[in-house]
């Protein structure tokens, strides 16, 4: 029923197959959903370390005298606050304040920025950015997505892996920072970010060098007691932290304020696309709000598109939902009327025609146990 266009493959596709991964379509790519099992891989990241292929993600380089002003006009966070080497989570909005994409923007030098965007939105983001660019902006944009691969190394032992692979010099990026260095095989961008809630880094490199790096990192990860992890574990890990997934929890019809991402919106920085809608929502009221919920008792896991009921009436559907491997309970997120989205409020999730109780809870679902 859908467009049968062939799935794209990352430079590591053959290695995943060789390692016994189960491959599934994700955002137009044929990606490993798991190697050994989602729960085992999830626990490896929480307890030791895991490595993920994130080569499907997109990378844009935006440079020039006008780069800072241009990006501040199209992104929600204030990019002017970044020093070279620093990065921030930010959002790209349409004129109605809806989310085109959520991304990380790094300042790599005074006049150059490195953006990491979602795989499913590379084309939409690029078209939107180009449409916003005028010839007076003095900005150059390059889309490096097709020839750049990426790996995410995540978990309490990520530092051990970095030391084993890169040596013990200061090559571990602090949270939300970027290190751009040259290796024997080309440039590498080391970013202190992740999508799991654990310490770690994301590492981007020329696509043709990815396999050698991946094999080396898998060996180091295994030596540290961890394993290669697929998108299944990536999804349960991010959802335990309450991190949104674009396409599930974010869309072009809802604003970052509705998604609970107001912290990443700098309304006071000056004009940017979608700002008027956000200001209006801030002064009037939000139509609905993304709430985190946890199933009470033993229930089937909540999954995307299951109906959500408040006071017996269906008011929407589950955006993201899964069985939390760390908590052993069903967790999820759904847009609810603002008064129903209060912490502690009881709602119901409809699963195969039956309704099961759930409680609206504070994010994150999972907190690291105190050591």
């Amino acid at each position, binding site marked *: 029923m859908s467009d049968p266009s062939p799935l794209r493959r990352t430079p590591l596709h053959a290695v995943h197959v060789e390692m016994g991964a189960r491959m599934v379509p994700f955002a137009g790519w044929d990606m490993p959903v798991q190697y*050994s099992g989602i729960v085992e891989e999830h626990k490896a990241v929480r307890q030791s370390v895991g490595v993920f292929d994130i080569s499907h993600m997109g990378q844009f380089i935006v440079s020039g005298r006008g780069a800072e002003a241009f990006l501040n006009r199209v992104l929600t966070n204030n990019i002017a606050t970044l020093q070279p080497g620093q990065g921030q989570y930010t959002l790209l909005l349409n004129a109605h304040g809806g989310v085109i994409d959520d991304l990380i923007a790094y300042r790599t030098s005074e006049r150059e920025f490195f953006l990491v965007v979602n795989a499913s939105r590379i084309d939409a983001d690029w078209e939107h950015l180009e449409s916003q660019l005028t010839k007076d902006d003095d900005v150059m944009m390059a889309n490096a997505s097709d020839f750049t691969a990426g790996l995410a190394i995540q978990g309490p032992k990520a530092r051990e892996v970095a030391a084993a692979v890169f040596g013990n010099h200061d090559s571990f990026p602090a949270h939300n920072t970027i290190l751009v260095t040259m290796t024997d095989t080309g440039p590498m961008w080391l970013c202190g970010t992740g999508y799991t809630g654990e310490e770690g880094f994301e590492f981007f490199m020329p696509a043709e060098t990815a396999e050698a790096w991946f094999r080396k990192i898998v060996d180091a990860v295994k030596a540290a007691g961890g394993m290669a992890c697929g998108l299944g574990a990536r999804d349960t890990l991010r959802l335990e932290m309450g991190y949104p997934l674009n396409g599930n929890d974010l869309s072009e019809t809802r604003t970052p304020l509705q998604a609970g991402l107001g912290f990443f919106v700098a309304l006071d920085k000056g004009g940017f696309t979608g700002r008027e809608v956000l200001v209006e929502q801030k002064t009037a009221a939000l139509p609905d709000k993304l709430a985190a919920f946890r199933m009470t008792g033993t229930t089937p*896991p909540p999954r995307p598109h299951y109906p959500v009921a408040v006071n017996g009436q269906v008011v929407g559907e589950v955006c993201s939902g899964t069985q939390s491997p760390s908590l052993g309970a069903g967790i999820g997120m759904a847009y609810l009327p603002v008064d129903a989205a209060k912490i502690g409020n009881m709602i119901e999730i409809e699963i195969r025609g039956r309704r099961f109780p759930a409680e609206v809870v504070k994010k994150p679902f999972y907190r690291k146990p105190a050591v």
Partner: protein
Amino acid sequence: MSNVPDNLRYRESHEWIDPMQNPAPVGITDHAQAELTDVVFVDPPKVGTQVSAGQQVCVIESVKAASDIYAPVSGEIAEVNEALSNDPGLLNRDPFLGGWIFKIKPSNIAEADALMNADAYRKHIG
């Protein structure tokens, strides 16, 4: 290489039944549990329900997906495995014994002859 006991019969959708017992236990194969990984919830059928061969009777859920379980033969659901409600992982650890899902009182046990034997199922999962 997954385990395929010789004494059982198999559906293409990876359920097994032990036709030598009455009521006959039904579960999913070692191959199926390995494909699903990490069963986290079993939504059992109701005892006393009449089902026909090939009818969807219950659902098992892994972290990633919900999977339908089909009746290998027609009959009445005689018993469900209560142990799975507290320990759905039993289905992964012991798919052919402790991990049975329900028992069915067959209305026509000859239907089991139409199911695959162990050799045919081994070929089926290649």
